């Protein structure tokens, strides 16, 4: 389980997160939605304990599988050596990862579909490939909680699809509590049970995706008229999608 309870974070006089409460039990996925600069990342950092709370409390296991938006790493290491770092907490200070740890890392890379470039230098991989390696590292921690900071922000549509399919399959297994932030409400529809909408006025809306990711709430969230459409997927099943009805668009 991971979450915040009446958490408040201030930067100077500005209150970025105001008495925010939500929780994600094992087996559920949460998407945090909000406009830029509204404090999605701050809420995430507060939840992980990287950001001091001025009030309230957080719940989190000691080890969390965390996937940063970008990995700032000036070391040239192989992807497998990045993934095996997920084992660091199990190894302690002075021990080195052994064959067993590498086996765990390989399994994780297989799970995320990144095994094909396990031996390649991490810093030479594309943004999408790196994301999958970092997700593998998070899985290799063995933590029941996965936290992803804007996992799809830098990805093209194909890689977004790959990532969402992966997140959805992890959700279906119901073994983990998953939290991710995103700009796109469709990501919440694709891979989350619950959504947390961080409104521009400082309030927040937390609840099941079916209730929260709805045009009325999203219009309040983004200040843009939103419409729900039904689309048939490749297998014929109907998918719900939300689209912005931007002003000025008069195509056709």
């Amino acid at each position: 389980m991971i979450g915040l309870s009446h958490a408040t974070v201030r930067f100077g006089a500005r209150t970025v997160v105001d008495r925010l409460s939500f929780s994600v039990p094992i087996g559920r996925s949460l998407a945090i939605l909000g406009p830029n600069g509204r404090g999605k990342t701050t809420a995430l950092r507060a939840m992980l304990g990287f950001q001091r709370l001025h009030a309230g409390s957080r719940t989190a296991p000691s080890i969390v599988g965390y996937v940063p938006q970008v990995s700032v790493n000036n070391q040239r290491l192989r992807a497998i050596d990045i993934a095996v770092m997920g084992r660091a907490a199990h190894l302690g200070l002075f021990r080195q990862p052994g064959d067993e740890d590498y086996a765990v890392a390989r399994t994780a890379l297989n799970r995320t579909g990144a095994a094909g470039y396990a031996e390649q230098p991490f810093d030479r991989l594309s943004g999408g490939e790196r994301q999958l390696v970092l997700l593998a590292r998070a899985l290799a921690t063995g933590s029941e909680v996965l936290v992803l900071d804007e996992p799809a922000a830098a990805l093209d549509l194909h890689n977004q699809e790959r990532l969402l399919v992966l997140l959805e399959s992890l959700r279906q297994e119901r073994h983990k509590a998953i939290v991710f932030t995103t700009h796109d409400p469709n990501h919440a529809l694709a891979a989350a049970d619950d959504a947390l909408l961080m409104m521009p006025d400082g309030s927040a809306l937390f609840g099941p995706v079916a209730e929260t990711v709805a045009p009325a709430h999203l219009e309040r969230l983004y200040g843009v008229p939103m419409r729900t459409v039904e689309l048939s997927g490749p297998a014929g099943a109907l998918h719900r999608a939300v689209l912005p009805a931007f002003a000025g668009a008069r195509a056709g």
Partner: protein
Amino acid sequence: MSEGLAARNGIPGGTPTWTRTTLVFAALLALLAVSLLVSLCAGRFGVPVTRALALIWQGLTDPSAPMQAMDERIVLLVRVPRVVLAALAGGGLAVCGAALQGVFRNPLVSPDILGISQGAALGGALAIMLGIWGFPLIAMVFVAGMVALVLVGFLARVSGRTETVTVILSGLVVSSVFAAVVSLLQFVADPETSLPAIVYWLMGSFSSATWERVLIASPGLILGAALLWSLRFRLNVLALDEAEAKSLGVRTERERWLIFALVAVIVGSQVAVSGIIGWIGIVIPHAARLLVGHDHRVMLPASILLGAAFTTIIDTLARTATAAEIPLGVITALVGAPIFAVLLRRHYRERSDR
């Protein structure tokens, strides 16, 4: 099959470049062996290689035998301790630089930046002025180095957190203050006796190496380097972004200070017996990185071997190039500074290309 081969390389999980890494390590070991041997034989009193090896064998198998021959005394009492000390100090300084560059996520830092070198210098200068030699001098050097480190720690800790930039700037501040006090000590030192000793010691040299000094410095150098080496995988994780490292279960701040303390032990031990020797901690890890890559698990041992060989070679040059011995610190600066300048330019060019 490939797993087995890779395991021999020390890193499990299959390394396609294991042959290259193994070759590099073999070459580094050979370089170290040759440089040690050359250093034993070269000098004003030349000793043939076979004779030097025979003398060492004799010294190892029968250490209590009385020394009669001139070359025996020179090799066993002067050159061997000197070579051992140079190799240990060089390996120690190099591994310190490698570890600090990982912790600071910045390839341009070195042991000097934590203020440890200047702190140790002040301790040593003070000891020389007070006429203290031997073990008490080492103790003063070490304590002063640690004091500098703790001062940097206090300065750098702002509202409960330590940022990399504040550590580097605090190191600069503390170094300047300690350097100023060292200058003051030189100003008031007796120009007949203690001043030359302080000046020569500050320039760094292994010329005063004795077995006693080897015994004094080696515990700190060997233990410190061994502990840093055992932290090699942890250093990979510590070199990540702060939040990433924390999420992987690393107590970043505490572990960083553990590494700083180990660096202080190594640098303190080295400065105590051979004065200030700069540049090795910054140039060698770079060369090691070019040879074996960035993974600390291979980069740290490569730095140790290369640092030991490089320092031995430089020390041999220092005492054989001219009739009078050139202070070692002068040569490392003359060799190291241009290399550093090239690295610096390349580092920032690479950055701006991104």
